[in-house]
C-alpha cells in the first residue's frame, strides 16, 4: 500500500515502541500472562508444524484398535491420547484440529477486522448519508443473533471451508466498524492528521498510514476479544454438525462426534474440549492484559 521509505518516523512505529517501552519499564509481567503467552505460542507452533509432529495421518484408521485408552488412563504409548471410534489416533486428530480451528479463527478475525475498519473509515471520511448507511448496517448486524444468521446461511448455501471462514468473518465486524469510525473522527481533528492533510496526502495515505497505526492498539484489543468468540462459535457450529464436515476435523467437530462416547470413551472429546477452553481463556487473558498496558489512562 505505501512504501516504507516515505513513512514519517514516529507514527508508524509508535505502537511497537510503546509496547516495547511498556514491557521494559512497566511492572513485571504476571505469571498467568506468561503462561497464556506460552500456551498460545505452543498452539501456533503446533498449527504451523502439524504435518511434521503428528504421529499418524489424521484419517489413518486402525479398526482393530478402536477406543483404546490414553496413556494417563493406562493405555499404551502407541496412542498417547488413545484412539477414537474408528481407531484413529486422537493426538494426531487433535493436532490437525488445532491447525484447522486456529486457521478459521485467524482468517475470520482478520476478515472481520478488515471489513469493519474499512467501513468505519469510509463512514468517518464521507460522513452524511454514507455514514448513516454504514451505521444502519452496524445496527442491523448488532441486532441479529449471529448464530441464527450463521445457521440460516449454512442451511441455504450448504457448507464449504471458504464459505465457513467468510461467514465467521462477519462475526463482530460491527464492533470494529464502530471503534474505527469513532476513533477516526476524533483522530482527524488532531494536529498530525490535519498537517498530513494540508500537505496534500490522499485519504488512503491519511487513514492507512497515519490514523490506523494510532488507533491500532484499540483494534488489536478488540481482535483479542473476538478471537476466542470465533473459536467458540466454530466449535459450536461444528458440534451442531453445521461447521467443519468429515473427513476434515476441527476442535468442535471432534467434540461433536465424541459426545456419543462421552460415557464409554470420554478421552475422544475431553482433549479437544480442554484445548478450546484453555485457548479461549488464554487469548482473553492476554487481551485483557494488553488493554491495561496500552491504555494511557491506566498507567
Amino acid at each position: 500500500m505505501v512504501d516504507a521509505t516515505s513513512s514519517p518516523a514516529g507514527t508508524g512505529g509508535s505502537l511497537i515502541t510503546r509496547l516495547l517501552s511498556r514491557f521494559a519499564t512497566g511492572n513485571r509481567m504476571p505469571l498467568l500472562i506468561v503462561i497464556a503467552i506460552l500456551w498460545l505460542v505452543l498452539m501456533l507452533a503446533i498449527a504451523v508444524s502439524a504435518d511434521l509432529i503428528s504421529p499418524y495421518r489424521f484419517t489413518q484408521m486402525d479398526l482393530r484398535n478402536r477406543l483404546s485408552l490414553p496413556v494417563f488412563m493406562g493405555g499404551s504409548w502407541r496412542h498417547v491420547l488413545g484412539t477414537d471410534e474408528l481407531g484413529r489416533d486422537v493426538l494426531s486428530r487433535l493436532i490437525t484440529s488445532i491447525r484447522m480451528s486456529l486457521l478459521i479463527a485467524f482468517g475470520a478475525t482478520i476478515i472481520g477486522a478488515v471489513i469493519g475498519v474499512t467501513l468505519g473509515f469510509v463512514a468517518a471520511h464521507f460522513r452524511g448519508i454514507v455514514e448513516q448507511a454504514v451505521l444502519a448496517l452496524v445496527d442491523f448486524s448488532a441486532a441479529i443473533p449471529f448464530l441464527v444468521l450463521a445457521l440460516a446461511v449454512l442451511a441455504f448455501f450448504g457448507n464449504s471451508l471458504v464459505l465457513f471462514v467468510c461467514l465467521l468473518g462477519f462475526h463482530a465486524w460491527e464492533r470494529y466498524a464502530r471503534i474505527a469510525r469513532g476513533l477516526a473522527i476524533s483522530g482527524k481533528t488532531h494536529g498530525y492528521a490535519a498537517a498530513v492533510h494540508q500537505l496534500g496526502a490522499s485519504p488512503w495515505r491519511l487513514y492507512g498510514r497515519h490514523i490506523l497505526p494510532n488507533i491500532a492498539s484499540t483494534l488489536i484489543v478488540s481482535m483479542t476479544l473476538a478471537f476466542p468468540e470465533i473459536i467458540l462459535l466454530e466449535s459450536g457450529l461444528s458440534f451442531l454438525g453445521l461447521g467443519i464436515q468429515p473427513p476434515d476435523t476441527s476442535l468442535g467437530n471432534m467434540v461433536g462426534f465424541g459426545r456419543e462416547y462421552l460415557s464409554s470413551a470420554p478421552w475422544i472429546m475431553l482433549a479437544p474440549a480442554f484445548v478450546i477452553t484453555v485457548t479461549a481463556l488464554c487469548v482473553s487473558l492476554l487481551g485483557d492484559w494488553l488493554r491495561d498496558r496500552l491504555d494511557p489512562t491506566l498507567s
Partner: protein
Amino acid sequence: MTGITRRHLLSVSAASTAAFAMPRFASAQSTERPAVTVAVQRISNSNTLEMLTEQSNVGTRIYTSYAETLIGNNWIGDMSLQPQLATSWKRVDDQTVDVDLREGVKFHNGDVMTAEDVAFSYGPDRMWGGGTVEVPENVKVVARQALPAFERIEVLGPHKIRLHNSSIDPVLEGRLSGSIGMIVSKRAFMEAKSWMDWARRPITTGPYAITEYKPDSVLTLSAFDDHWEGRPPLRQVRFVETPETASRINLLRSGGADFACDIPPDQIATVEADKRFKVVGGPINNTRYTVFNKSHPVLANPLVRQALTHSVDRNLIVESLWSGRTEVPRGLQWSFYGDFYIADHENPAYDPDKARALLRKAGYNGEPIPYRVLNDYYTAQTATAQINTENWRAVGLNIKLQMVENWGQISEGGPETRGIHDWSAAASLPDPYVQMSGSWGPLGSPWKSNQWRNEEFGKLSQELGSSTDKTRRIAVWRRMLQIIEIEDPAYVVLHRNASFTAKRADIKWTPAQSFVMDFRRHNWSA
C-alpha cells in the same frame, strides 16, 4: 413426559385384561391406556404419510400403525403372509387372484370399507393416472415398480374382489402386502383438496389414527377404538424426530421417550448400563449398499467401479462397527429365495492390490469422485463412509466426501457432481424379481434417472419377470447378479442391515425383522 408410574401401569394392565373380556364396551376406560413416545431419527423423508410417496426405511417404521394392506406380514415372526383386510385369497389362474375382504372394517372417518374402496386404492385415481384426478409422476413410477404387471381390480361383490395381472407372477399375492397397497377411503381421498393435503393425512384403517403430523418434528397417532381387531393397547403413539443418536438416548434416559430407535451397536452397552433400559433387535431384511452413478465421467469406466468394489473391507466393518452383530450377505440376495439363492455367488473380494491394478488399467489419474453422505441416516453411516473413503484413498482413489442434509441434496446437480451415495434395499418376498428388478431394472429409479443402465441386464430383468421356466429363470438371475455386482458394478454390498431399538425394560415388546414397529395388541404388554 408420559407420566407412567408403576402403579399406573398396574392399573392399566388390570384395565386391559378387563378390556379383553369385553372388547367393545370398555371404552370408558380408554384414558387409562398408556401412551408411548418413540424417538426416531426421521419420521418421513418426503414429509408425507402416504406410502406411494414415502418408499423408505423410516416410512416402513411408521405406516403399519395407521395403515393396513389386504395381506399383512408376520413382521415379528417368520415374515409369512397373514390375512389382514383380506380374510382369504385364492389363485384362479396364473394371472388372477380372488380375494375375500374382511367385513365390518371401518376407516378412521367412520366409513365402512367396501370392495369399492379396495378397487379405488389400486385404481387410476390413486396410482396410475388417467382417472378423474391428476396423479404425481413419482407416484406412477413407484406404483409401476411395485406392481409391474398389474392390470386392474374387478369388484365381484361388496366384499369380494378379483385381481387381474397382465403376466404370470409367482409372488402376486405377496405384492398385495406391499406398503403402497395400503387401503384408503375413496370418499376421503376424493374430498382432499390436493395430493399433498391427502398425503399428509391419509384416511386408512389401522389400529391408530393420525391426529397430528408436523413434518420434521412429530407424528401423533391415537387409538382407533373401532378397529376390527378391537381396542388397540395404547392410547397414543407419538413419533418424535430426533436426528442425533446421543439426543435419542438422552430422551429415553430422561423419560421423554419410551423407545429410541437406530441405536448403534457401540452404544448398546452404554444404554444397558442403566437397568431401566434394554436394547432389542438384530439383523433385518434390509441390505446396506453403496451405489455408483454410471453417468459420472470417471465412474463411466467399469474398471474404476470394479476398483471401488475391491477396496471395501466388509468383514472389518461388520466386526468393528457392528461388533459382529450382523453379517455380510452373498450379494443382493436372500437365503429365503430358496432355489433362487445363488449359494456360490461371491462379493468382490477385499483386495487393494487388485484395485490398484484395475485403476492402472483404467488409466485413472486421481480425478475427484464425489461421495455424498447423510449424517447417520443409516446406523453408523458416517463412520462406515469414512472407513470406505480411507480404504479408497489407500488404493489411490480420490474420493471427496461431502456431508449433505437430506435426500434431495443427494440427487441434486448434474451427473458430474453425483458420484457415489449410500442406499439400502429391503426384501420380504421370496423371488429375486421383486427386489432386484424393482430396484435396478428398467422400472427402477436408478434406470429412469440414468444413474445405472445396462442393456443386457435390462433384457434379462424383463425375462426374469415373464419367463415361466424355473431353470431358465435361475440361470438368468445368476447372470444378472454377475453383471450388476461384478462386471458392470452398480453398487457394492456392505452388509446386512441391523436395527437396534432401546426401550424401557418393563415394556414387553418384540422388534420386527424389518424397520416396522408393531404396536398391535398381540405385541404389547407392560
